[in-house]
């Protein structure tokens, strides 16, 4: 069968973001703190940044249900939920939330899950406490 459409993936050679995506490959969601301990919006430049592991839990800050898409993979996946997730450590991440579009809401607790793609993995959040079986 020629080609189920596949998810577009990040470029692993992009110098500012490669470390993040390689850590994802080890199922580690990482974030960066600056010299004063402030949490950096990744991948913004910072001096003396320190990379830390997140527990992968947070809340939906806002979201949309994507119903139409020009790309064959996302079209096949629609309707699906894309959200800004505010992680408990204080950083915000754009990500997919794998949940019933009608059940998702602002403020909903979510936790990270992983979709493996070789050297990297894509964080896909799910409702908290609904750990994959």
């Amino acid at each position, binding site marked *: 069968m020629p080609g189920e459409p596949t*998810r*577009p*993936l*990040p*470029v692993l050679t*992009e110098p*500012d*973001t490669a470390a*993040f*995506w390689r850590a994802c490959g080890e199922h580690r969601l990482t974030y960066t703190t600056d010299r004063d301990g402030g*949490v*950096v*919006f*990744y*991948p913004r430049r910072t001096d003396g940044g320190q990379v830390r592991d997140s527990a992968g839990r947070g809340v939906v*800050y*806002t*979201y*949309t*249900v*994507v*119903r*139409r*898409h*020009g*790309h064959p*993979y*996302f079209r096949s*996946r629609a309707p699906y939920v*894309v*959200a*800004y997730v*505010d992680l408990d450590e*204080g*950083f*915000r*991440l*754009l*990500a*997919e939330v794998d949940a019933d*579009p009608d059940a998702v809401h*602002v*403020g909903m607790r979510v936790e990270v899950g992983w979709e493996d793609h070789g050297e990297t993995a*894509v964080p896909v959040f799910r409702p908290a406490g609904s750990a994959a079986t």
Partner: protein
Amino acid sequence: MAARAAAIVGIHEYPSRRVDGVSKWQIKAESAARALADAGLTLADVDAVYDAGETGPMAGIAVPEYLGITPRLVDTTAVGGSSYEFHAAHAARNIAAGRARVALLTYGSTAKSESRAIGTGARSMGDPAPGNNMEVPYGLPLIGNYALVAQRHMHQYGTTPEQLAEIAVTTRAHAVRNPEAVAGLAALGIRNSGEITVDDVLGSPLVADPLHVLDCCLVSDGGGAVVIAAADVARDCRTTPVWITGAGEAVGYPGNDRDITTSAAALSGPPAFAEAGVRPEDVDIAMIYDSFTITVLTLLEDLGFAKKGEGGPYVEGGRLRFDRPGAPALNTDGGGLSSNHPGMRGIFLLIEATRQLRGESTAQVEGARTAVAHGNGGLLGTRHAAATVVLERG
């Protein structure tokens, strides 16, 4: 700038929304010729060129070459749909400083003919910026980006889909009065080209919740040109000068604590109003970038027409229609929602504001003296540019 040093003296909007065998270069050139003729000037008078680069790389060279002009000032600021408000601001400042006398802004697009899926299209995957490389796996389409703002606005302030729809309803009412917009709707295959209701908007299919098809702008071909001249040139032009009396610029981008319901317009608006010495309540005409209904709601608040969070009630009941006193008239040409949107609509904000201040609009506000053109370029929910331009008659 409040000293009335630079004025819009020539405008042209390319009428067709669906071109056949015409290039974006040709749209730019024809628009330039007609805008200059409007002013009573010629290409030989142009000494400053402003271009957003929609024809391709090196537009700062290619466009002057194509037009056969010899500018002493070239500015290729390219920040999406807001580029033309940036250009107008820069032209006014350069003219005020004596570095230029006649500035030409042009735009041409064949987005519709090329069948570019702007709102739902996939992102370009090659050589991403670091910020984009964090987002590619999620395929957030352009409409979805704006939908993130709408969803949060509804959560935070109780804004309703009905209130967002009011913006589309008001804008369509203005488009229906504009023969070029009506012809355009037909040419683009829009079945109902008459007035629409809130129920029509809510009954149209959801594209990216909470935004429906009728919350979204059109995709059309089109273009136009604007000529901005120094005061002494303007005095001898055929047209009533429309003075650029204030301008402000800003950019916005994501952050851990960023309130997504506030855009960079909150930064670009105050310096523009202060420079012009006007307040939002003095504004007769609000030409507000309307890629989506939520764009307008957010920008109206950020510019101070309504308090943050009160944009929903503010737009209710047709308050921003051209024939309602007590509030500015919104996007009186029909806007991107119902007249034309070839991808970067900022130039049309300047053009319609100028028509209004000359008394030439198809939804004319009696005695209009002060207009604001606010461009939003890029993506409201993530990274965007904002420029506010205050325009005044006489």
